[in-house]
């Protein structure tokens, strides 16, 4: 929390984004741009998960339900109703938020917490997957192909550099939202709910509403990610949209990097892609990267519960608590 407000903090953030903006100008190999896009995309989705799972402490195992909803809204409005893909983004976000409202309303009303909340979100995403697999509007298991017609107006780019700019912008917005949470009353309330729901309620926090709004925000953001996915790959099918793998990846990225922090999902995403791209370099076999993901997750939970980012962060100096009241305050606050 401390440090972002300093001019130096701002300078770092600005420099980071400026540097990222230059990437497409210098990196022309498509596969490198592709990797950069995937890194930011995972970081973006991880940040979406992080809003509900990290800040508000409502760890979902089924966030794919939001991603898939956004993907299908964009794909269906485009192919069936002839909408311009850009115009499908608001309905996709609203769709994700609506699903977030539904799941949140039911689960939080029933008082589900912790593992039970995780499992029920998983079940919801399973229901969505089965529905998408069976319904006519989603074309069942066949999936939906978006016809190729490159052009800015169609949110399709021949040049990956443009996709990179789009996903960078999305990431910047998500970054901004997380940053706002760190600074705002809403964010403070989410963290309070995560840390201790009863105490939060006693101090005037409407815990139900806070959790619900967190899940809606998180769901809307994840849904936008789904829309991007459809435009990037021009294809969506039930396992891609609603598969457990997507949910797990979102959780992993955030947990490994550091959940409940602004930069955690980015750190986690970079770490995971380093792992997967390095292993792919040495060993071209399915599953190997994910095996390592699993190992990293266990090690993080076991040894570094605040994620990789806690390795970089300066710990506040803990003053021995003698209750003598000696002036021992340190830190950046004035």
């Amino acid at each position, binding site marked *: 929390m401390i440090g972002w407000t300093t001019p130096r903090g701002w300078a770092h953030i600005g420099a980071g984004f400026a540097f990222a903006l230059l990437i497409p100008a210098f990196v022309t190999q498509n596969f490198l741009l592709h990797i950069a896009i995937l890194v930011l995309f995972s970081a973006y989705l991880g940040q979406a998960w992080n809003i509900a799972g990290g800040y508000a402490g409502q*760890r979902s*195992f089924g966030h794919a339900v939001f991603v898939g909803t956004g993907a299908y809204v964009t794909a269906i409005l485009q192919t069936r109703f002839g909408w311009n893909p850009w115009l499908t983004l608001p309905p996709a976000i609203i769709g994700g938020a609506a699903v977030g409202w539904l799941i949140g309303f*039911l*689960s939080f009303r*029933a008082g*589900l917490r*912790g*593992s*039970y909340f*995780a*499992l*029920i979100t*998983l*079940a*919801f995403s*399973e*229901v969505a997957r*089965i*529905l998408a*697999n*069976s319904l006519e509007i989603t074309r*069942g*298991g066949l999936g939906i192909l978006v016809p190729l017609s490159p052009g800015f107006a169609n949110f399709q780019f021949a040049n990956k550099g443009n996709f990179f700019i789009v996903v960078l912008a999305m990431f910047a917005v998500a970054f901004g939202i997380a940053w706002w949470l760190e600074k705002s009353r809403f964010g403070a309330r989410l963290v309070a709910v995560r840390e201790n729901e009863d105490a939060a309620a006693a101090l005037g926090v409407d815990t139900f509403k806070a959790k619900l709004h967190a899940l809606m925000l998180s769901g809307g953001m994840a849904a936008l990610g789904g829309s991007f996915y459809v435009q990037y790959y021009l294809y969506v099918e039930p396992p891609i949209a609603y598969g*457990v793998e997507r949910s*797990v990846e979102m*959780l992993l990225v955030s*947990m490994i990097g550091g959940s409940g922090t602004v930069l955690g999902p980015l750190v986690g995403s970079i770490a995971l892609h380093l792992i997967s791209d390095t292993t792919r370099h040495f060993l071209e*076999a*399915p*599953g*190997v990267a*994910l*095996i390592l*993901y*699993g*190992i990293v*997750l*266990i*090690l993080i*939970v*076991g040894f570094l*519960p605040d994620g990789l980012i806690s390795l970089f962060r300066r710990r506040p100096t803990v003053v021995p608590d003698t209750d003598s009241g000696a002036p021992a305050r340190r830190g950046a606050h004035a």
Partner: protein
Amino acid sequence: MIYDFPIIFSSVMNGLMLGGIYALVALGLTLIYGVLHIINFAHGSLLMIAMFAVWLLLETLGIDPYVALPLMVAGMFGLGYVLYKGVVGPMSHGEDANILLVTLGVAVILDNLALYLFTGDTRIIERPYSFEMVEIGPALITLPKLISFLGSLAVCLVLWLLIDRTDLGKAIRAVAKERQGARLVGIDVENIFALTYAIGVACLGAAACLLLPTFYVSPQVGNVFVIIAFTIVVLGGMGSFLGALVGGLIIGVTEALGGLFLGEALGQIGISLIFILILLFRPTGLFGGAK
């Protein structure tokens, strides 16, 4: 009419047979929950590993699944014990949310290890008895299904005797009820946790042997079972043996009838819906308080 009595009856019978296996899988899960109060997310993946082991034993050494049963139970018991002592226990620091994440990590590792070792192919086995039929009323049931049903019931009975009648079972029940108290009277609680986890996983060894002759195995098969097993456990009441048994049968029949009336694809939705509805409206399960 397609939905005349014999078809529905045989569907119900098939559902019951499958439900027996489900019950056995869920029994391990509910035992682990009842004693350790943790949700073992790796349960489905451990079943998948066990099924691959059964498949390997048959393909390489020619050991029939039913013959392999004692071996598999012992092997899975050992795996469960080591897994708890080496990974789940130490890594989760006793926190509920951590255990879910650690067992999720284990599931991810096992699923992808299987994918790496065995590829994503779906495999089935064929035994001389694979297609022998048994007549029950108007329904024809394959012999392996009947064996799996009866075998599951037998294993459930053995497990119940183990918990109810032995000293180990007594210690397990003591830990389940009052872990502080158990610690005070000198029970090694951590070890009981590991043993309970191992017993829960050993159930999967038996389930794999009974299941494989009537089912298939692939690296994703664990995902099929994990939701089903959780559904049964919450349906029957977390930690309840009888609940798991009855819940398993109910889910088996529901799935069979769902498939019959809604079609294969949509039929699976029933289980997830039941799971959601129970959690939302009756979290203590159909059989009241979790005991």
